[in-house]
């Protein structure tokens, strides 16, 4: 069974972004970049399925400019077998990404596609579901447990009320939540080995997908600042303030 894992290069999750003074977007110059944390979880899950003998091949794909090859190499150091970089300079909406991925699914015919539930930059939480719809596949989103058995995948999902378990017929799309697994670190020998693994590069415009922007960003502003920072001396003062100053408790 082949598993496809789409991964995204994003700002490192520890970094707090700043908005550009001209309010056109956020400033990413010299910012530390990394694989989207949810994609790391997706790679880890695919690699574990391979280690269990369930998957035979793990293919990672990333869409973006050439810097995202760095994240593809990281995924290969974590155990992915093969990489595909879809080269594209312009920013894309999740809809475009899903369309390109649909083409990859048609070409590669994976049995399972594991994506992150959400990119931590756009915070869209759309691509996996859109891909599933366009490739006409069932989906198990926000997965905290995945088990593949006889042509199906059982997915336990983190939902607002608790947990929900679904059984999907393969091929299917799964998106990862935080508690699906804890990604490993790449070892130095594996980082070296990853350099020799095959990485294909294809320009996005070869896929025949209309990439004209659907959503226009008019401006990006910093969030309203909170005027926090005040300390109280103890419980008595706290309760007094909550009651009489903030008036949020009776």
């Amino acid at each position: 069974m082949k598993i496809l894992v789409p991964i995204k290069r994003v700002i490192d999750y520890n970094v707090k972004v700043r908005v550009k003074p001209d309010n056109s977007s956020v400033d990413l110059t010299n910012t530390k970049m990394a694989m989207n944390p949810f994609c790391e979880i997706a790679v880890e899950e695919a690699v574990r399925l391979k280690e269990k003998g369930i998957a035979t091949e793990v293919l990672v794909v990333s869409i973006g400019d050439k810097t995202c090859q760095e994240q593809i190499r990281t995924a290969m150091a974590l155990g992915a077998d093969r990489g595909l970089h879809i080269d594209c300079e312009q920013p894309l909406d999740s809809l475009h990404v899903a369309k390109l991925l649909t083409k990859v699914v048609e070409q590669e015919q994976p049995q399972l596609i594991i994506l992150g539930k959400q990119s931590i930059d756009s915070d869209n939480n759309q691509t996996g579901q859109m891909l599933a719809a366009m490739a006409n596949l069932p989906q198990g989103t926000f997965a905290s447990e995945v088990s593949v058995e006889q042509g199906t995948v059982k997915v336990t999902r983190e939902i607002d009320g608790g947990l929900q378990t679904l059984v999907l017929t393969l091929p299917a799309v799964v998106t990862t939540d935080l508690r699906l697994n804890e990604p490993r670190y790449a070892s130095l020998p594996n980082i070296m080995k990853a350099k020799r693994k095959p990485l294909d590069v294809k320009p996005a415009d070869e896929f025949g997908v209309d990439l004209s922007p659907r959503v226009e960003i008019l401006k990006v502003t910093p969030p309203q600042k909170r005027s926090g920072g005040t300390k109280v001396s103890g419980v008595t003062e706290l309760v007094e303030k909550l009651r009489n100053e903030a008036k949020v408790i009776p």
Partner: protein
Amino acid sequence: MTVLVYAEHDNSQLKADTAKLVSAASQLADDIHVLVAGEHCAQVASQAAELKGVTRVLQVNHSAYAHQLAENCAQLVVSIAKDYSHILAAATTGGKNFMPRVAALLDVAQISDIIQIENSATFVRPIYAGNAIATVSCNEPIKILTIRSAAFDAVETGNNAPVETLDVIKEDPRVRFDSEQLTVSERPELTAAEVVISGGRGMQNGENFALLEAIADKLGAAVGASRAAVDAGFVPNDMQVGQTGKIVAPQLYIAVGISGAIQHLAGMKDSKIIVAINKDEDAPIFQVADYGLVGDLFEILPELEKAL
């Protein structure tokens, strides 16, 4: 223009999110339909009909919609989509699950997590865990939007909109509901509560959350948690507040033993009043707290409970 609102419910009770969605919808049009898709959900449909501003409730009662499976719900919405200029669902795990499918099937982009509506094509949404706020415009013929309900006030009740039953059954044989484990709680829901008290890694274990519950009982509060507390198994996943958990904006948020990582702040920093209790006076949570209390939570919590 007519706007469709997808109702959030559990087949017996309409969720508070829906009244907030209707209020968002009323900024877009005067004609607002609410779709109630579920099984044995007639009661929910009547509750939706009571919401001020709703002009029609569309009800679909079938086992295919009992568990809000994305494949089925998306097909249902797509089958009636052409009559609407905008389709709104809550930015909950329910709306996030099926709405992008609707968008993809209609070949339009989706705009997620809207906190403000500027006009019928311009919307405001947080990005980068709320560290930037984007104003975006979208010219798609049908606008597919998920709404962060904490950012909108609920409409009132007292209406009596007509309820119409639809007979559209979409059932994807490739997905089967297996089971669910729902958290039962007597407390208000996290996203609807006026007061939320959350615990982090500093709570040390699940039993110690009883200290928070004792206070929650006195304040009628919901109890939340940081990711670290959920990952460590102290409490279930549905209690996580943050960028990738639930977004809350209560009148009062009390963070106990939580350091204040950006991902946690993303889920609570729009609360009216924030209280932080932490033994580390340099914890970043204090930078957003209106009232910070430095000290050991195991001493402070029992004292606080007594004082309330």
